[in-house]
């Protein structure tokens, strides 16, 4: 096919008509000349020529793109067929839409978190620097550095074109009365120039007193007013001048955690840094750098390790002594092209499992629609046979059936896109309820569109090809027979049903496992009470309390709080359980000789007296802190049962000495042993935990205050009233409850449980519909046979059991296959489960029971109809 010919095809069609006419005229004339009567002469000429229509069509087709010509016709035909059977069309489209929508939504989440690059110049050159701290967090890269580390790397490396530092979103902007109106980050002065982000308005050159706004924050809070440049922005009680607004699309470097604004790390142009609690040696910065052209990530890591070696010298020596080999690299570098998202680390495994589940749902949806189409195309065998007899090529009929499936799938794809937006929004809502408010940018970009399109194509092929090839394997002779000639498809349909039951079983069982995990985590004994504890952070430093005055403030505040209405107990802690932070310190115990390679580190929390009374964690031995323990000269600690068991075995730990280093070295006496309690996570064992006295140390962060009261509302009211009474200038922020924190820490589990449960229910429903559809169809086909049986004396019960027996075989096959697959796939989800084995027999049994019940219901309806067949009508039926 050459295109010029295609454009001339109409003219050539006319030409070929004229030519053929000429032939007929000429031949007739010749025949007349030979002595034939005119009528006979003309018909003889026609006979000699053949069918002019066919000849012209053949020539026409030579010059046309048959595909484009016919697709229009097929499309119109497909739409007509859909209109004629709206129930079928709606079922099919809805089924496909659910499958495609689920996949698109989860893929767009994957795209947003894992695939999409951030809106900076040449994102693939960006890397993040991480360090490896085995004693703090085994096997976990730690991305936080001190300002001194940052300047050390920045000034000495040979591999980076530029390097910038940024905190997490820890800066709070006060706008009007709201002290947390915006969340921003402290960044180094070269942050925007290193990333190559342009200003939308103003300038992004940061100096020590300027703030830069995010475009969306600017629109949301300032209504996009350009006169905002030069105005003041109060961040953490410090005033900055707004210098510019960053270009639309740039949301910071943490995918999922957009910045509202940035303020500089460097204060007063000096490199000495202090922002409230952060000194030059507190780790609080993330380092992002741009590789020089031609440098690789591994070269960068090697270079940084050389620079960092002196700083880690003592650690290296210690490591080498313990492990008897040289340490591996302390510094690791990884690509930051997609940002440095924590969301990616937290959720990537969940997302991958979810997309597999969504894929299975789509597969079931496709199989369902295929089965519906198969049943229909079996019914349309006669239509196809007639078409073939009239001279349609097989390819032509196949392409027509494929167009019908394509129409269905396209409609399903479009509806799926709309569903995806909705599913995506609820997904984002669920993620936003976590400990870090994750904001997913789920706009549909080219990659998502391509993905959806590929899904639709895939669905079309699955849905259309099998019925199309089957239905056209009809010989014209079959038309003379009354029974359906399309027997081959019966086995395909049964195979599909078995597969469908199997996949549904896997999904339902998987959902059961995730639901059990969530339930286990929500109900487990965490070692502390959950109800009626309200939390908030207080920052007396902001109101001018420091050193000893701060402790006085705490004492007065707590005393008053405990006397408030409804309050049962109140205390302070550096870290509240489940807020997602943890602190760990290396320890030495006097009189304890560590094994080689033994990890001498414990989780640390700093608390006030009455903390255990508030949280309900029992004191097993010794005593709580009291008012006499606040003197920093005599440090004291409590340990939990696990520490006692691990390091003291049968000996009495009370009175023993632990040395540890938190800011400064402490040599502390153990005064009590408390019950184990979970710390940063509901999962896993309660860690080895040591509790130091908050009032004995310099608090490096604003502490949490916990209030246990008869009621959440009473506790919150008591907090507010007490702070107003003691000193209204002390900021009280982040009000929440223990329960809410626990819920927030389980977002990933809830996400898995909810989505797999929805998908499992969908799969169950689709399997039931599939079984029902196929069985109902076969009952209709067997009406005559059933009529004869009944005429010969078969009882209703027998007919019912006959129909249901056929289903039972399929069901058992599917369940067996599904069980095997579920067992085989179990290990992939094992790490995401809690207190339930991937091969949990009860979960599997419940899933099998559910599917069997659904299948029995799906089979019973057609079976009952079969038993009500009237023999007389059935026999007259044909």
């Amino acid at each position, binding site marked *: 096919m050459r295109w010029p010919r295609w454009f001339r095809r109409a003219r050539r069609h006319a030409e070929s008509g004229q030519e053929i006419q000429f032939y007929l005229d000429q031949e007739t004339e010749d025949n007349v000349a030979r002595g034939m009567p005119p009528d006979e002469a003309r018909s003889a000429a026609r006979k000699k020529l053949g069918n002019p229509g066919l000849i012209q069509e053949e020539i026409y087709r030579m010059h046309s793109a048959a595909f484009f010509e016919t697709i229009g016709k097929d499309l119109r035909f497909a739409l007509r067929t859909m209109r004629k059977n709206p129930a079928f069309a709606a079922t099919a489209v809805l089924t496909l839409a659910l499958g495609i929508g689920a996949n698109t939504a989860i893929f767009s989440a994957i795209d947003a978190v894992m695939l999409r690059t951030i809106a900076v110049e040449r994102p693939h050159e960006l890397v993040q620097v991480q360090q490896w701290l085995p004693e703090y967090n085994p096997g976990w890269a730690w991305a936080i550095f001190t300002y001194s580390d940052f300047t050390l790397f920045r000034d000495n490396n040979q591999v980076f074109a530029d390097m910038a530092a940024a905190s997490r979103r820890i800066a709070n902007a006060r706008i009007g009365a709201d002290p947390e109106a915006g969340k921003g980050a402290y960044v180094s002065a070269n942050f925007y120039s290193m990333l190559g982000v342009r200003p939308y308005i103003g300038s992004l050159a940061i100096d020590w007193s300027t703030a830069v706004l995010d475009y969306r924050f600017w629109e949301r809070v300032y209504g996009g007013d350009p006169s905002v440049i030069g105005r003041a922005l109060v961040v953490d009680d410090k005033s900055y001048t707004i210098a510019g607004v960053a270009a639309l699309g740039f949301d910071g470097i943490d995918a999922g955690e957009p910045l509202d604004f940035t303020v500089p790390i460097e204060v007063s142009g000096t490199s000495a840094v202090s922002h409230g609690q952060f000194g030059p040696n507190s780790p609080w910065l993330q380092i992002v750098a741009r590789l020089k052209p031609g440098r690789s990530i591994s070269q960068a890591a090697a270079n940084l390790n050389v620079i960092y070696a002196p700083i880690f010298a003592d650690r290296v020596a210690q490591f080498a002594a313990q492990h008897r080999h040289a340490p591996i690299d302390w510094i690791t570098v990884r690509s930051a092209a997609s940002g440095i998202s924590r969301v990616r680390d937290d959720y990537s495994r969940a997302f991958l499992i979810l997309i597999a589940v969504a894929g299975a749902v789509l597969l079931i949806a496709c199989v369902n629609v295929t089965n519906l189409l198969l049943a229909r195309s079996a019914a349309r065998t006669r239509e196809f046979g007639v078409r073939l007899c009239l001279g349609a090529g097989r390819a032509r009929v196949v392409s027509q059936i494929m167009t019908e499936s394509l129409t269905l799938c396209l409609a399903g794809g479009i509806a799926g896109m709309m569903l995806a937006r909705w599913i995506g929004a609820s997904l984002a809502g669920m993620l936003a309820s976590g400990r870090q408010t994750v904001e997913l940018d789920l706009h549909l970009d080219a990659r998502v569109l391509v993905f959806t399109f590929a899904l639709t194509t895939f669905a079309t092929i699955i849905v259309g090809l099998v019925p199309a090839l089957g239905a056209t394997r009809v010989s*014209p002779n079959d038309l003379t027979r009354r029974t359906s000639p399309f027997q081959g498809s019966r086995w395909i349909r049964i195979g599909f049903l078995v597969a469908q039951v199997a996949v549904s079983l896997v999904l339902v069982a998987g959902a059961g496992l995730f639901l059990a995990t969530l339930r286990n985590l929500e109900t487990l004994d965490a070692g502390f009470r959950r109800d009626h504890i309200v939390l908030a952070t207080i920052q007396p430093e902001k109101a001018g309390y420091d050193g000893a005055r701060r402790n006085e403030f705490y004492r007065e505040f707590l005393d008053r709080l405990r006397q408030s209405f409804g309050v049962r107990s109140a205390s302070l802690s550096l870290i509240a359980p489940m807020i997602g932070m943890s602190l760990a310190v290396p320890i030495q115990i006097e009189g304890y000789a560590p094994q080689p390679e033994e990890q001498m580190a414990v989780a640390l929390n700093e608390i006030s007296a009455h903390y255990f009374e508030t949280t309900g964690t029992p004191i097993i031995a010794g005593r709580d802190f009291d008012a006499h323990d606040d003197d920093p000269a005599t440090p004291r600690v409590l340990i939990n049962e696990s520490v006692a068991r691990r390091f003291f075995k049968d000996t009495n730990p009370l009175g023993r000495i632990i040395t540890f280093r938190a800011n400064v070295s402490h040599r502390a006496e153990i005064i009590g042993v408390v019950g184990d309690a979970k710390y940063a996570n509901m999962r896993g064992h309660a860690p080895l935990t040591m509790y130091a006295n908050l009032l004995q140390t310099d608090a490096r962060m604003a502490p949490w205050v916990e209030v246990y009261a008869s009621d959440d509302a009473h506790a919150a009211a008591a907090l507010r009233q007490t702070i107003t009474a003691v000193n209204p200038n002390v900021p009280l922020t982040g009000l929440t409850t223990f329960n809410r924190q626990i819920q927030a820490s389980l977002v990933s589990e809830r996400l898995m449980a909810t989505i797999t449960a929805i998908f499992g229910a969908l799969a169950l429903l689709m399997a039931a519909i599939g079984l029902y559809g196929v069985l109902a169809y076969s009952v209709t086909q067997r009406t005559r046979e059933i009529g004869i049986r009944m005429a010969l004396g078969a009882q209703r019960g027998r007919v019912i059991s006959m129909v249901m027996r056929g289903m039972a075989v399929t069901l058992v096959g599917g369940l067996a296959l599904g069980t095997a697959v579920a067992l085989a796939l179990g290990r992939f989800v094992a790490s995401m489960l809690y207190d339930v084995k991937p091969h949990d027999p009860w979960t599997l049994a419940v899933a099998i029971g559910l599917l069997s019940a659904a299948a029995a219901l799906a089979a019973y309806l057609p079976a009952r109809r079969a038993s009500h067949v009237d023999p007389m009508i059935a026999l007259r039926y044909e």
Partner: protein
Amino acid sequence: MLPLDVHIEYNPWVMARNAKPEGDMLQGTLDMLILRTLVLGPAHGHSIAHAIGRSSDDILQVEHGSLYPALYRLEDRGWIAASWGVSDNNRKAKYYRLTRTGKRQLATETGRWDRLAKGISRVLRPAD
């Protein structure tokens, strides 16, 4: 007996299959006959059909209708060229003439046919 598409019976399957003319060995044969006829000078479809029948002493009963798609195909390949003219009895007719590439094509086709025919007759009548 020569393997030619001389006789087409109406049969849906055959018709359906005939819709795809490419790759058919017999098709090439018809093409060759048309080219050979046009060596004698330009001619229109009607006279080509009769010429093929006549020159083969009516052994080759080409269905005249099948000639036209072949003519269009040959024209597309550039082996023949068409122009509208007036026939002997003053009718508007489309005349085809052989192009230079058509002549070359005929020569190669003829050579190949001769070799094939020689080979086949050697197999069929080894005694000669």
